[in-house]
């Protein structure tokens, strides 16, 4: 009875302020909002993603992003530290697969995983998905594909004129990353592995001007 009388005396603003104070006070005891997330795996959703093939990024797209100097992704090299030091894709960070669950990655970041082929990155992808990371992608074909398509692409000698531009661009990208375009399909690809360019510095800032204007980030205000 007394409470209702008191409430009657208050203006709407005062009532709302009182509500704010009550909620704010209770908040002290309610705990961490980041801790209450589900950990279950949405198996159907995962299967759907795999089936739709929206979970990977092509080496060509990644090369474009690196050249444009985009910073809205984290590129993770899942191989061992030794292999990472021998060669890694520019802008990549080294997180061996075993340490992936403890890595300093935020769940709202766009994360691209790669390994030598595709198996480790697929396993890492599943691991992060199970931990409810949303934007996790695999580099399609891994480092093998990167070597064959970006670093040492095969450029045929007698090109039809309408394809010249395409191959010229491929060669340009290859040289930019320190690779060398091949003129013919080499019988053995083994030499490409020993011939790798020196590993780029950890925070390699691409100095070449962007070929295409960088895409606007989708988020933020």
């Amino acid at each position, binding site marked *: 009875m007394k409470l209702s009388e008191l409430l009657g005396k208050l203006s709407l603003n005062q009532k709302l*302020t009182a509500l*704010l*104070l009550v*909620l*704010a*006070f209770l*908040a*002290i*005891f*309610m*705990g*961490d*909002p*980041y801790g*209450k*997330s*589900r950990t279950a795996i949405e198996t159907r*959703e995962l299967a759907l993603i795999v089936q739709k093939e929206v979970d990977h990024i092509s080496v060509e797209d990644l090369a474009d992003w690196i050249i444009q100097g985009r910073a809205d992704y984290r590129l993770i090299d899942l191989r061992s530290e030794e292999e990472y030091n021998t060669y890694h894709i520019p802008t990549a960070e080294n997180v061996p697969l075993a340490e992936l669950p403890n890595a300093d990655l*935020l*769940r*709202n970041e766009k994360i691209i995983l790669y390994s030598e082929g595709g198996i480790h990155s697929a396993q890492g992808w599943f691991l992060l998905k199970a931990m*409810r990371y*949303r934007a996790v992608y695999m580099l399609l074909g891994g480092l093998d594909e990167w070597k064959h398509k970006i670093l040492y692409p095969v450029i045929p000698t007698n090109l039809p004129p309408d394809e010249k531009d395409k191959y010229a661009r491929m060669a340009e990208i290859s040289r930019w990353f320190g690779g060398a375009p091949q003129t013919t399909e080499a019988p053995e690809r083994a030499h490409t592995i020993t011939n790798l360019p020196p590993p780029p510095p950890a925070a390699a800032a691409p100095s070449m001007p962007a070929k295409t204007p960088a895409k606007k980030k*989708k*988020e*933020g*205000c």
Partner: protein
Amino acid sequence: MNAPFYKYGLFNDEVSLIIAVFIGIGFGFFLERAGFGSARKLAAQFYFIDMTVLKVMFTAIVTAMIGLYYFSVLGFVDLSLVYLTPTYLLPQVVGGLLLGFGFVIGGYCPGTSCVAAASGKYDGWVYLAGLFAGIFVFGELFQLVEKFYVSSYLGTMTLPRFFGLSYGLVVFLVSMMAVGAFAAAEWGEKKMAVKKAEERS
């Protein structure tokens, strides 16, 4: 069903743009209703005559904060998926001061200038033209300021992490700050009204 809806794949890029249009119109509508389409009302803030801007903005902040906090504690919103603007401390301090200068000189902030332009105010259109001219000049000069633009990077920093406090406590402290600011604003407005009346007589 959990939020953020976009991150959970409830709709795609195109639909998110359509939704953004509606939210934008709603935002503009409420800014206009709060009286923020008038440069006089906004400028009055800086003379401490009319503290509506502070009250509306701080109310919006605490409402969003309380809402997000409780929704996430209840498990409806996954806060770790909500986008946070990364903190570049020094450039953002300078940017904030620049925005403040522009606000005092022009009588609008970027959002309210759109509202003013939409409600047919000429100064709003002039302000908008200046805004786009500024964006263009900034874009052209970007290479000169790029180093500074990305300096003092703190990552996606939040108050609880920066001060090492619990989230709930920060919610409480910010709410206290808001209530204090509301009380001070009301008190100041009354003082200024008395002073004005005295000046007139």
